[in-house]
């Protein structure tokens, strides 16, 4: 990582591409809204346009945070972790005895995890939640002397922290990787991960809506199709390969990394869908219009961020 300013031709090209993509999507959405005739079609197009509007906001927020620097990016992700954990625990039954541990999860674990990343203490941020918090939380809960569903309650709180905080925090941690010979700002690696993971979701949705026939697993995620997965996944890998210019990877390595991101992202969305079905809800929340909650938008990043981080760290630093 270097301290070079992010505002350089490469970033401007990428920002321009995002702007063009959003504009095209908005125009297509407007045309579809004129043409659609069936009531079911109206619902789909209304949801599509809500999604596109939300994408404008998300892209603008993310770009602004990256331009303002590492600390702001870290704060943005800490806030997203807080909101995602709030969504997860809202749907998870808890009892009175869990209260102190849950309070600490939100107001101590989240800030400490991101602070450890910010000071670059890799050795501790990578074990803080899976080791220390793993034991501290049930130790606190057990003081409440309430054994009803103790294992279930403990396990669910741990899952919430692992997904919403631990896994998600590996995305901004990319900014602190020191890669020899890589002269570009570290924020571009984060941009790479987010672009490939999110475009994979977007193109899976587009391919699925246009050509999807074979349901992948109706019981878990009714909208996922084989055609969507293959078409969307391969498109995202192709884009990820082309974007090797902003990474330390060769085109072939970038293709492999994109494949990892896409595969992990797919399973992230799939696993979290299964959890939603188990909890009896359609979405994790309502904060992002058209998409659902923060966790609905981050489910693919949550699974791909730690893998991408560790593969990059192991082979390139």
């Amino acid at each position: 990582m270097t301290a070079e300013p992010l505002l350089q031709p490469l970033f401007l090209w990428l920002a321009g591409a995002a702007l063009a993509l959003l504009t095209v999507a908005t125009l297509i959405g407007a045309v579809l809204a004129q043409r659609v005739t069936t009531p079911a079609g109206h619902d789909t197009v209304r949801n599509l346009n809500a999604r596109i509007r939300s994408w404008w906001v998300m892209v603008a927020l993310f770009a602004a945070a990256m331009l303002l620097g590492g600390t702001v990016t870290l704060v943005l992700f800490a806030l997203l972790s807080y909101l995602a954990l709030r969504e997860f625990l809202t749907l998870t039954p808890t009892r009175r005895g869990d209260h102190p541990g849950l309070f600490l999860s939100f107001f101590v674990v989240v800030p400490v995890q991101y602070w450890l990343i910010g000071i670059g203490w890799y050795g501790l941020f990578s074990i803080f939640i899976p080791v220390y918090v793993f034991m501290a939380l049930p130790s606190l809960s057990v003081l409440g002397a309430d054994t009803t569903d103790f294992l279930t309650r403990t396990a669910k709180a741990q899952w919430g922290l692992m997904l919403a905080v631990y896994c998600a925090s590996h995305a901004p941690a990319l900014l602190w990787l020191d890669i020899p010979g890589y002269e570009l700002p570290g924020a571009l690696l984060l941009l790479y991960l987010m672009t490939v993971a999110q475009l994979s979701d977007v193109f899976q949705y587009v391919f699925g809506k246009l050509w999807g026939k074979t349901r992948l697993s109706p019981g878990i995620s009714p909208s996922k199709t084989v055609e969507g997965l293959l078409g969307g996944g391969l498109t995202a890998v192709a884009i990820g390969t082309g974007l090797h210019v902003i990474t330390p990877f060769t085109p072939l390595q970038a293709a492999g990394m994109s494949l990892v991101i896409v595969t992990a992202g797919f399973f992230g969305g799939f696993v979290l869908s299964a959890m939603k079905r188990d909890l009896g809800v359609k979405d994790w929340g309502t904060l992002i219009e058209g998409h659902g909650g923060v966790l609905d938008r981050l489910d693919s990043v949550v699974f791909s961020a730690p893998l991408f981080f560790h593969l990059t760290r192991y082979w390139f630093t």
Partner: protein
Amino acid sequence: MMIPLLRPALLGLTRLLVGARASWEGCAPADVPRIYFANHSSHLDTLVMMAALPRELRARTHPVAALDYWGGSALRRSVAVGCLNALLVDRTGKATAEVMDAMAAVLDGGQSLILFPEGTRGDGAVQPFKSGLYHLARRVPGAELVPVFIENLNRVMPKGMPLPVPLICTMRFGAPVAPPGDGEDKAAFLERARDALVSLSHSSQSQPRTPSQETAR
């Protein structure tokens, strides 16, 4: 004073903590005289209700709050009255007629009230209602009686826990309850109003199962 800044700050913090989402299930937001009656689940009830209301209704809606607590200091009073439009009432029972006059005056002026008719809060279950709602509904029969179930807030700050845990709270606005009928006595009306509130607590699929229900499944 600091009020113009304090109000958005308080409402913003409330949303960051509990989301405060309004779900209009039995009626639409409308600027007509209404008595919103809600379950009392934590100290944050009033703030969360105000944060959930649309801005234009918030300015014309007054939560009824206890004078002995909220009038206790200049700061509390300015938060309650200045930020939250609260109508402070003496709940000691010494000035029942004045309290009723003040509440009726708000409704007669075309504005709305928020009441918590349980008086005290239990651990999750909705307690029997106090009689104030009945007397007020008889006094101002034109006001709509809208039940509001505040979901999850008792998990945010359970009784005896001083610190909050951030969880998303949804306010479920139900269909208006008919005012007390001619042959209906106080107890029957209060029971009917309470039932309307309780039935809102089961109306959602997104309602998290309690651990015991989950075990039974």
